[in-house]
């Protein structure tokens, strides 16, 4: 008798649980708003063609470790990794946790959502790239690489990412089967960008590589004087990327020819943001630079008094950037004037994710912050 009474609620629980592990998209979710990967798009431009008003703090969610991963927003959900070894799935409207996935290593890589799959890489000691169902959190597959900082990008059914073992991997998005690998001379922390059938990635061996997406064959490579963990950004035929030699390089994306370079006062780990006419890049000299995209001429600079590791996000009218002093700042894109800022308790290495609803960023104080726009206009 007692056993039957015990089984009945257990069965009910199991049935309920199994039903509830279906989808966790919030009812009021804006599923159109998307920043589904690091820098927002496969070209890693960091640009969203919206006009953004002054934001205000909407919510903040505390994880168990620093958040250096940049949030990805898709399907009305926010996905972000933390150094507490978990991937958090939050409701971007109110910051409530929808789900979380436990892994075995810290997560610096930014998640990528492609269709209904969530991809995220894990650092040492996990060292794996994972694929989950983006709407249920169920693991689809995993594959072993090494100390992954790079954020994956998809080109059709191919998933590409860099690894701490020095390889650029191309795997099938469905199963994680390795299609090809390309070995560079050192760790690949840069997040690959895709344009025109080529995948571009920087390596700590000081080189930028352009590889055929399908075969991995080298189209060209370009050597700088410093290691590269900045991610390339591509607009049209112009590829921009920063190097630890303090220089921002603009290359011809199809041939790898140097178009122009700009030397800052400190090493560059931030990834550039590109809009139609300008390139925006942060440097360890504490400045955000706005450069003419075609010529590399300096348009304006803005000084934070602290280093910039975070990569800027750009709208029609503003640039959003985080700094090591913990501040997230909004600048007037025309002249770099400070329009708004918010200070978190620790450094910001995460790069802001920008949608019409708001701007989202992680901080080393362990929080994910959401700042909402009253009316963002496309």
């Amino acid at each position: 008798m007692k056993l039957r009474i015990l089984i009945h609620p257990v069965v009910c629980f199991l049935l309920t649980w199994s039903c509830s592990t279906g989808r966790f998209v919030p009812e009021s979710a804006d599923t159109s708003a998307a920043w589904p990967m690091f820098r927002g798009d496969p070209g890693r431009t960091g640009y969203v063609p919206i006009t953004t008003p002054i934001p205000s703090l909407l919510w903040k969610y505390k994880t168990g470790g620093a958040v250096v991963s940049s949030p990805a927003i898709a399907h009305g959900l926010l996905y972000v990794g933390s150094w507490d070894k978990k991937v958090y799935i939050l409701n971007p409207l109110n910051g409530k946790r929808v789900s979380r996935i436990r892994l075995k290593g810290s997560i610096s890589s930014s998640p990528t959502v492609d269709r209904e799959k969530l991809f995220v890489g894990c650092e040492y000691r996990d060292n794996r790239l994972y694929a989950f169902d983006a709407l249920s959190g169920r693991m689809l597959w995993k594959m072993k690489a090494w100390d992954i900082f790079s954020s994956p990008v998809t080109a059709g059914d191919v998933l590409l990412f860099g690894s701490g073992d020095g390889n650029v991997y191309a795997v099938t998005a469905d199963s994680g089967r390795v299609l090809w690998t390309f070995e560079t001379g050192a760790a690949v922390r840069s997040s690959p960008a895709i344009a025109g059938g080529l995948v571009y990635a920087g390596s700590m061996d000081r080189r930028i590589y352009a590889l055929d997406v399908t075969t991995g064959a080298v189209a060209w490579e370009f050597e700088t004087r410093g290691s590269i963990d900045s991610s390339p950004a591509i607009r049209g035929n112009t590829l921009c990327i920063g190097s630890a030699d303090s220089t921002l390089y603009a290359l011809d994306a199809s041939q790898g020819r140097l178009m122009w370079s700009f030397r800052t006062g400190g090493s560059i780990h931030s990834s550039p943001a590109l809009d139609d006419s300008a390139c925006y890049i942060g440097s360890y000299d504490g400045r955000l630079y706005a450069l003419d995209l075609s010529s590399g001429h300096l348009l304006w600079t803005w000084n934070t008094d602290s280093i910039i590791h975070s990569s800027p996000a750009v709208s029609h009218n503003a640039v959003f950037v985080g700094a090591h002093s913990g501040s997230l700042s909004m600048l007037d894109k025309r002249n770099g004037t400070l329009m708004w800022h918010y200070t978190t308790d620790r450094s910001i290495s995460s790069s802001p994710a920008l949608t019409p609803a708001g701007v989202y960023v992680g901080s080393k104080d362990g929080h994910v912050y959401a700042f909402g726009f009253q009316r963002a206009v496309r």
Partner: protein
Amino acid sequence: MRTRVFLSNSFVILFIACALIIAWSLPQRVQGQYYFGKNKIQYSQFDWHVIQTQHFHIYFYSEEKPLAETVAAWAEKHYRELERKVAHHIFKPIPLILYSAPSYFQQTNTIPYLLPEGVGGFFEYMKGRVVIPSHGSWPHLNQILRHELVHVFMHHKIDATLRQHRKIVSFSAPLWFTEGLAEYWSQGWNTEADMFIRDAVLTGRLVPLQEMHRIFGTYKMYKQGQSVVKFIAETYGQESITLLLENWPKAKNFDRLLQLTLGTSLKELNDAWTYTLKKRYFPIMKDKEPAEMIAFRLTDGIGINVRPVVVPNPDVSGDQEDIIFLGNTTGYSDIYRLRQKDDEKKPQEIVKGGRSAKFESFHLFRTKLSVSRDGLLAFVSKHKERDALYIWNLDQNRVTARYQWPELIALSSPTWSPRGDRLAFSGIDKGGTADLYVFDRSSGHLRRVTHDIYDDRDPDWSPDGDHLVFSSDRGAYGQEGFYNLYLLSLEGRAVKHRLAVGSGPVPNGPDESLRPTPLTAGKHNDYAPAWSPDGQHIAYSSDREGIFNIYITDRRSRFRCVTNTFGGAFDPDWTSDGRHIIFSGFEEYQFHLYRLEIPEQSNSPVPQTAALDTTGWEPPRLSTQVTRGPLTYRKKFTLDIAQSAFAFSPGWGSFGGVQVAFSDMLGNHHYYFLLANTAEASQEFLERFNFGATYLNLTHRFNYGYGAFHLANDYYNDFDGWYFQRDYGVFGAVTYPLTKFERIESSLQIKKSDRNYSFYLKRRKALLASNYISYVRDTSLWGPVGPLDGMRCNITLGTTTNITQRENHNISFLTDIRKYFRLSQRTSYALRLVGYYSGGDEPLRFYLGGSWSLRGYSFRHFLGRKLVLMNNEFRFPLIDYLRAGLPFLSFGLQSIRGAFFFDVGNAWEKNYDGLYGSFGLGARMRVAGFLVLRFDVAKTTDFHTVSHRPSVQFFFGWDY
């Protein structure tokens, strides 16, 4: 040499404070490990202020305000640069405490220990304080500042990264890496570092990275670490260092960290680094010579022999004149006299340093000596609060004069005028600047002849008496730390330098400066100039070609090199005939004296190529970076330590407690609180509460403390068995240091004491007042496992009075005298004499037996209220380094020392039954830098028979 970091000051003080509360009520035992020690004396009182900048709180006193403002500007600049290098932002202001002179720095209470003279600054991680002194050179101070800030950033970065990864425990960075990184990021690579590494490689003394523990804490470790970090940065990129710090949470040990980050193991890194060094340095031997090949070596043995000065004697040839120099072959810094004509290379100590208040320190590397034509030796020594200039008669072997000036804290490098009526020297004032002074002995007039921010050092008087030549950083490259030579005419009108800081309150001296003219210039260092006897040339040490060698320059600034060593040559001085130069040469990690016959000039002298400029440099301005201040310093207490402990034993019960310690930023005021409970049942909880509160004031020379306590515990001794005792009361203690080596201590405790004897059903209640007074003296010099030289003694008299009964409760007399007779550099005979007596109704009891007292007998074998002990021990080196290479494990053991001993003693209650003895041999080994393991084999005797079987004892503890 700098030592660093990671010293837990508060725990030691707390231990002592708790000992004040508890120790007097417990039976005494013969241990004597911790009640000696030298003294830190607060001679000076400082009027502290604070400047707050964007990232720093800078604590300074009013005399050093200009220096503090410059330090603040430098600090902000370094902060910006290090933030980029380490990719880390520090969110709290960094406390930076500045002292303008070394002897002020040694008075600091930010650290409880006595600072060795070689410490250039430190970062203390409990409160995150950086504490640095000026040694007269502002660029050098800047370098020290940057060195410590590297520690700050490294500590913060690793700490934050671990916490952000939710990792509580991690491995410690090897000290060679920590210090090597700080050296490399503060200095880059310079000729001094190159000299040490070159010497190590060429003489086969480079220590592998896997064995760096063998040189733990030494200057050699600093330089090797600096070289390795340089190699990592050049091979793997500057950013690889940052990556190492960021990867810290991922690794279990440093070797794994290297593999993860650089893809190389420690051994592979060592092999690659060593190979690179050999490729770099071995070819040098093709063109350079060891010093012994070009000059005659005058000293032998192990150690440092520097700053030679010839005793002028025109009646003999230069190779027969006596030489006076500074050396430390005994471990103490002493002044020696070498008689060249004796040919035996056995210098004689003429002035002993480091053992008395009169000659507390001779500042081994910082100051020259000088001998006048009539045989008077001038030297500098620390004497109480500041340095003193001494005149020593070489014939009479005694001090004939001592000079000190209240406004001059540090002195160095005195030089006699040709007529012997004046002395010139370098002096550091309270503001932290080093200038040249001329003192007229007959009139007592002191004249300041330079007055600016530049470091002027090593003056030498010209034979005609009209000029001084000296080394200074006032040149175009001085701000980067380079020194060139300057001539100063002592005639003519003085001109005030535009960069004179402060009013330079010098008695009887004008606030003006003479204008020096450059003799050399360039991005290199020229040190220790010495005029030739004919006044036509100046010999000096220079690294202008990458290695320190001796050069001779004429008055037209043409120079030639007269030594070509690969080690390094320093401190030249001419013999009276002008044909020889005596110098100090560096090789095999030692400094020895050499005599060089000046070679014939084979090539034409080379003219000075760099422009001889007089423009100088200006320190950075702070004004825009100050956010607040100067503010008057106010005490603000922050937590230093909070510890808790809990223990349970089924037989003995439980114990739980917590202790916390607070102190102010300058370390002058401390509060300690102890809370514990030994209840075995809930109804005992209140009765068995232990509480202690202590306040310590270390501000003045007279240190004092007071507090209150309530203690309730079970105790046991062999006489009374088990008893429960409850004490509550107040106490006070004072310490007055007479000198660095001697002090008087006293304490008073008044308590209500209630003792309940469980077995005897007896109870004793009393109001007790205890007074203790001690004289402590310590001049010991330590080897790896214990003292080797000097002496230590502690003589204590104490009485406890039962105020209720108005009678004597107990009286105790304790004496512990230890003398160490140095037999050779590494051997000594150690004698200890101990006498304890306690009488009265509740006397103290003393134990004897075991590895720390009467060896061969078991621990606490003898017990009584009276005790005598004599230990005799011959201490000698046994094994310097032993390496075991097992198939699965390799390890090294070092500094294993041996001992032959003979002990005699007894402890008795009432009836004395004669003396007991033991004799045997033992070995001691230091482990992990702070623990000494002891192994003794002894036979015992009652002086009638000898035990058949030896007793073997294995324990821990320093030699007595």
